[in-house]
């Protein structure tokens, strides 16, 4: 028979006000196996903890049940106390009689009755508790950065500076991301390229950083400290070691029909191309869907003109597998597709553009060399209308319910950029609310109104009617309740931001969750904003939710700090509440291996004695380092050969029985 001690906490009046402590004590004393019952005002205090420690030693307790607040609050505290008194911490059980009893029930009699039932259940479970010892696992001192935008670059630089190796995987041919496309940044209006390009160069030259551009995550295996990631390096068709970046191939390429991704389709590019002049690495890539050589077998001009023989048409995708201790996800965002917003004829009319296209149109390195001209006819516009919240804060099926967060500020920036270069252009901004929380943000937006004379109109645009060479904008000024018609030359739409289309797919590979909008979910919205529910995987930037550059950079450094902290540990202890296989009972059907979310169960062949003979038998085998302890396999296992330590079938059934007494 076990020697169980029960400790009932008053929590001041928090518990004692609603639960009759004496009655609970009396009831606990009657439970078989309970040899010592004590109460105290604050069991979590040092005095309270000493009470427990002394009882363990003096009464030779081998199980401890504490009736107190939620285990989420102080389970760790009490386990530590038990450990210091020489008791395995997993022999401690908590009966939650505060959050789930005294705080939610008013009737003292009923609350007391329930508290007793909860204590009974905790004792029933504790009776069956066993000593559990966590194992130790090593940590691979290398981090992986998925995404090479500003978030990825910042995180990688921070980790590299701390002395750890970092690999950056970037899907496109160059690092830089959205920030590289942006002309100026708010709220200071400094040039985006001027502040980003040096960081891109730093990342490419840092001895601890290795770039995998034009690459994607193929598969992820392993667990915190020991991830094994397979990286698919897509065939660039150009040998990066031989290429000098001279650019002759891109000039000579006869196919110039493809739309430049970097210039948002406002400019054409060749089939062999460098995305933008400052690209890192400065190595071209062949777009095989556009290239004449790949399409027709003829051409091969680039190969002939390349002075260093770097063109390799027969290159194939290569797979690289690498071990990492930590992973930071920084895959960024996209703008939503505006096809369904036919009232703003974005797909029909070239002078209706998105905000990202606007960035390219005002950029000195953009298709118009920074001259702000109408895409339809190359003339300078006289009136420009900005429409905010296109698809943001939109509950309908074509939009996103959330606020895209960055549009108020960049629209003010766009308006100012126009006014600064061309004060004579009339600028109108339709908005629902202007949201500018952030250092110097509101001042920035007010400057647009007060100094630059941008016309802010609270209201939306109903429809844009192309009339002749004008865009007739039908809107409303909700403050004066007047309907407006503006004969504009250009309309700029602040399209909602969205998570990357393949976020869910990547999430599945990494075993991290996404929210209803496909943004990755942080472990806690306030207290663990850069961690995920999967240990060792962190989030940075807009892949977690809409974010501007300052916030992205802050979060990136935070994620880097978390990753560095992990890599720095060298060793980790794992959760001992993992699944175990009863090999005698296991029939080897391996259904468990199929459902395990962590691929922690594999099969192994063992030898067993059956009727005097040694026979080989296939059984399931749990990798305790991979198992996270969800317990899902225990239900898949019909025979009950799989059980979860700390939450064994017998323990839970005992709790059910005790509660139903």
């Amino acid at each position, binding site marked *: 028979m076990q020697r169980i001690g029960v400790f009932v906490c008053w929590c001041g009046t928090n518990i004692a006000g609603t639960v009759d402590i004496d009655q609970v004590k009396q009831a606990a004393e009657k439970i078989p196996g309970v040899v010592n019952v004590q109460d105290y005002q604050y069991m979590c205090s040092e005095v309270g903890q000493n009470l427990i420690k002394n009882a363990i030693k003096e009464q030779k307790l081998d199980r401890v049940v504490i009736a107190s607040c939620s285990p989420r609050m102080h389970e760790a505290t009490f386990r530590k106390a038990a450990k210091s008194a020489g008791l395995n911490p997993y022999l401690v059980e908590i009966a939650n009689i505060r959050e789930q009893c005294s705080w939610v029930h008013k009737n003292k009699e009923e609350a007391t009755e329930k508290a007793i039932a909860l204590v009974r259940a905790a004792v029933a479970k504790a009776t069956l508790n066993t000593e559990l010892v966590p194992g130790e696992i090593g940590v691979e001192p290398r981090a992986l950065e998925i995404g090479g935008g500003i978030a990825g670059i910042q995180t990688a630089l921070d980790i590299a500076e701390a002395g750890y190796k970092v690999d950056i995987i970037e899907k496109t041919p160059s690092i830089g991301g959205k920030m590289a496309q942006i002309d100026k940044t708010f709220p200071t209006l400094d040039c985006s390229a001027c502040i980003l390009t040096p960081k891109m160069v730093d990342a490419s030259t840092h001895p601890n950083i290795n770039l995998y551009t034009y690459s994607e995550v193929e598969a992820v295996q392993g667990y915190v400290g020991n991830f094994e990631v397979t990286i698919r390096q897509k065939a660039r068709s150009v040998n990066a070691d031989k290429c000098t970046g001279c650019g002759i191939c891109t000039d000579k390429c006869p196919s110039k029909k493809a739309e430049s991704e970097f210039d948002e389709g406002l400019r054409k590019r060749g089939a062999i191309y460098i995305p933008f002049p400052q690209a890192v690495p400065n190595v071209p890539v062949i777009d095989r869907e556009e290239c004449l050589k790949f399409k027709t077998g003829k051409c091969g001009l680039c190969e002939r003109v390349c002075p260093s023989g770097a063109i390799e048409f027969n290159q194939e995708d290569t797979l690289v597998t690498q071990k990492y201790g930590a992973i930071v996800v920084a895959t960024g965002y996209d703008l939503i597709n505006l096809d369904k917003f036919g*009232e703003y004829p974005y797909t029909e009319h070239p002078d209706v553009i998105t905000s990202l296209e606007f960035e390219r149109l005002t950029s000195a390195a953009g298709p118009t060399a920074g001259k702000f001209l109408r895409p339809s006819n190359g003339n300078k516009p006289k009136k420009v209308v900005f429409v905010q*919240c296109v*698809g943001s*804060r*939109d*509950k*309908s099926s074509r*939009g996103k319910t959330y606020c895209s967060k960055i549009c108020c500020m960049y629209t003010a920036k766009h308006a100012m950029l126009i006014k600064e270069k061309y004060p004579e252009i009339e600028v109108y901004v339709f908005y*629902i*609310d202007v949201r500018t929380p952030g250092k110097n943000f509101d001042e920035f937006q007010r400057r647009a109104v007060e100094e630059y004379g941008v016309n802010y109109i*609270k*209201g*939306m*645009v*109903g*429809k844009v009617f192309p009339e002749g060479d004008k865009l007739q904008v*039908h*809107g*409303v*000024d*909700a403050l004066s*309740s007047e*309907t*407006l018609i503006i004969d504009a030359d250009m309309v700029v739409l602040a399209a909602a931001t969205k998570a990357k289309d393949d976020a869910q797919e990547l999430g599945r590979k990494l075993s991290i969750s996404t929210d209803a909008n496909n943004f990755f979910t942080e472990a806690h919205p306030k207290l663990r904003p850069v961690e995920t529910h999967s240990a060792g995987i962190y989030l940075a930037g807009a892949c977690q939710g809409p974010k501007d550059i300052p916030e992205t950079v802050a979060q990136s450094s935070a994620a880097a700090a978390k990753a560095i902290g992990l890599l720095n540990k060298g060793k980790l202890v794992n959760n001992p509440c993992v699944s175990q296989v009863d090999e005698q009972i296991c029939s080897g059907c391996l259904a468990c291996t199929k459902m395990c979310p962590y691929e922690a169960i594999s099969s192994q062949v063992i030898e067993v004695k059956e009727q005097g003979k040694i026979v080989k038998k296939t059984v399931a085998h749990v990798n305790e380092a991979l198992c996270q302890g969800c317990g899902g396999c225990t239900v898949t296992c019909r025979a009950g050969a799989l059980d979860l330590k700390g939450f064994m079938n017998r323990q839970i059934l005992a709790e059910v029985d005790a509660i139903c007494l």
Partner: protein
Amino acid sequence: MGRMKIIPDAKKKELQQILEISGENVKDCMQCGKCTAGCPASSSMDILPHQVIRLLQLGQLDKVANSQTIWSCASCFTCTTRCPRNIDLAKLMEAVRLTIIRSKGSSRLKADDVPGKIDPKMPQQAIVSGFRKYNK
């Protein structure tokens, strides 16, 4: 004429009835004005579509019921289709119209008036629609 101060009252029984008949939740509206901006009939409305919802949010049903607006609405569903908050304003307009014409003797269109309003080319559809919209 001085300006009256209104007392917001979103719990009024009549208002609740409007919300029930329409099945719409006016609280969802954030007053972006897109309904008004796109309304083809707004020129003959004394209260603009987004103001209709605002007044309902404030419990000022009377102002809406006494407006020309509800009779100018052609139920063209342009606002319904574009509303970023999924509010069907056409249904709210209808609900307000119904509370008026459902009370006895309050039909807006009397049978006797019809001959004066139609011409030989006018299709049945117009007359039936009109009766359904203006009469009970």
